[in-house]
């Protein structure tokens, strides 16, 4: 059985591991545009000279030999022939019995001014991006980042460590608007500012100016103001990598369409990870990869953990967690606790916790995702919300694994 995987990110590697655990004899091949295995979530540690290429890997160095996997690094798949079951590389055709598309996402560069064509504009998705930025950083004077989301702040954090002046332009009135509320965001904003970062919030870029070398020298805001810069990093969202699907017959619109078994519209072709649009977070990609792999090994398994409204951040050794809906509606109850170095906010709707933000103190906080995801009624607990722990839901199986023991009526 030839199991072929396109992509060596979270989903692709998790799938390969899973197939190998299930089946010792399958032929497993991974083809990837990446030259090496690395965690995208750690790219800023490379840019900031905290890690080298080797320590960015999230698998042991001997992963491919121990698991007996054939690996084509630095090879892009150009097209997929679903009639004859093979994929097309630059100089090679590879046949498959089962194919997994785990091609992830690409940075979106908006079509404004010369952002798409200028030679000093970068996305922040691949190690090649992090490498180029790290190489050029010593010689640039002013770096402008588009977008104050997680990725924008990741790269800013790295550049500030290198003592580079950074200016971040963001359309929303606060930073990290998708992840945390304005109170928690203001704390990070101040920390970034104290370390040399400038923010332009509520600001929309409408145009750019370039020099004769095709490099952007200024970006223009809606107000007409020009901001000088000699490097632009765009962190304004991602789009599933679907280019290789053109002409394949595999159905997709923005993302690849998959059924609950993560099979695409074509026989023997599966998809997993952020290319399915089911969630742009690491754990979701891993779980999708594992699920698709089981199905590729004829172990029928549905992908069920679709809850992805969860994030952690850690800048300047100040960690933050947010789960669920962080924007309360008018009839929600909001509980806030502020003590030095810790901010906690819990949002409750109809006796059910729908969202939480914890900044500073994440101790034993794993229960919140479970309570929110499973809509557990917490109103019957005769205890302060701030002291809830797994002790309040304690259950244990005969093999010693924990389980939640909540009165059935409490589970909506």
């Amino acid at each position, binding site marked *: 059985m030839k199991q072929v995987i396109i992509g060596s990110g979270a989903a692709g590697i998790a799938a390969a591991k899973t197939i190998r655990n299930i089946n010792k004899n399958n032929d497993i091949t991974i083809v990837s545009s990446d030259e090496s295995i690395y965690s995208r979530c750690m790219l800023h540690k490379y840019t900031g000279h905290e890690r080298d290429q080797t320590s960015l890997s999230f698998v042991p160095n001997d992963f491919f030999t121990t698991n007996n996997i054939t690996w084509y690094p630095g090879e892009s798949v150009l097209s997929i022939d679903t009639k004859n079951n093979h994929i097309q590389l630059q100089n090679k055709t590879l046949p498959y019995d089962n194919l997994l598309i785990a091609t992830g996402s690409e940075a979106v560069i908006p079509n404004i001014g010369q952002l798409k064509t200028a030679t000093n504009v970068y996305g922040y998705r691949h190690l090649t991006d992090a490498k180029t930025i790290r190489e050029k950083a010593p010689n640039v004077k002013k770096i402008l980042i588009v977008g104050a989301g997680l990725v924008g702040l990741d790269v800013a954090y790295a550049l500030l460590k290198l003592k580079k002046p950074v200016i971040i332009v963001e359309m929303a009135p606060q930073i990290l608007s998708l992840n945390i509320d304005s109170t928690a965001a203001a704390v990070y904003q101040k920390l970034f500012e104290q370390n040399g970062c400038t923010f332009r919030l509520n600001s929309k870029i409408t145009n750019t100016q370039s020099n004769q070398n095709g490099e952007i020298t200024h970006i223009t805001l809606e107000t007409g103001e020009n901001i000088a810069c000699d490097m632009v990093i765009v962190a304004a969202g991602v789009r599933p990598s679907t280019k290789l699907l053109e002409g394949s017959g595999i159905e997709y619109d923005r993302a690849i369409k998959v059924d609950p078994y993560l099979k695409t519209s074509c026989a023997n072709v599966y998809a997993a990870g952020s290319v399915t649009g089911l969630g742009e977070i690491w*754990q979701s990609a891993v779980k999708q990869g*594992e699920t698709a792999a089981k199905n590729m090994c004829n172990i029928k398994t549905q992908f069920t953990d679709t809850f992805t409204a969860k994030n952690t951040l850690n800048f300047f050794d100040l960690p933050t*967690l947010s789960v669920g809906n962080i924007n309360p509606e008018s009839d929600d109850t909001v509980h806030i606790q502020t003590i030095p170095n810790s901010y906690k906010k819990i949002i409750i709707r109809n006796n059910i916790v729908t969202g939480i933000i914890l900044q500073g103190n*994440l101790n034993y906080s794993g229960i919140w*995702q479970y309570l929110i995801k499973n809509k557990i009624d917490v109103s019957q607990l005769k205890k302060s919300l701030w002291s809830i722990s797994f002790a309040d839901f304690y259950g244990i199986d005969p093999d010693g694994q924990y389980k939640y023991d909540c009165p059935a009526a409490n589970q909506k």
Partner: protein
Amino acid sequence: MSQIQRIMIDHTKCNGCKSCSLACMQAHRQDSGSLYDLDLTDGTNESRNSIQTDANGVYFPLFCRHCDDPQCVSACMSGAMTKNPENKLVQYDGKQCAACFMCVMNCPFGIIKPDNPTKTYVIKCDFCAKDKNGPNCVRACPNKAIYIEEVV
């Protein structure tokens, strides 16, 4: 399936003495010494287990389960948190850890946490792997509320 060892829990026998937590702190302290000079206020000596109470004041030992399907491992983006295929322990490599704390958010039982003083690594049960006598917490428990069993 190979067998694994797990710390089994009979919470009805726990009287909240926290001998297990002290033993864990002592086993993981960075300086040397005996239990009698262990600095309980030094954040680097944190316990990997905890005893919590429910609303009725009943004690519950909360210990890492080294789960069969560990959510902390699937959440880990650096490869620091892994399930050992041989002994089935969920192992944490502080050097590889990137301190993103996705594992903390994803442990359904809220067992793990960032270290208090620096918030740069994860406080996680290592099954006292370095100690040839095995889990210190189990040996310290006077009530046999925690004990080791082989599970298939």
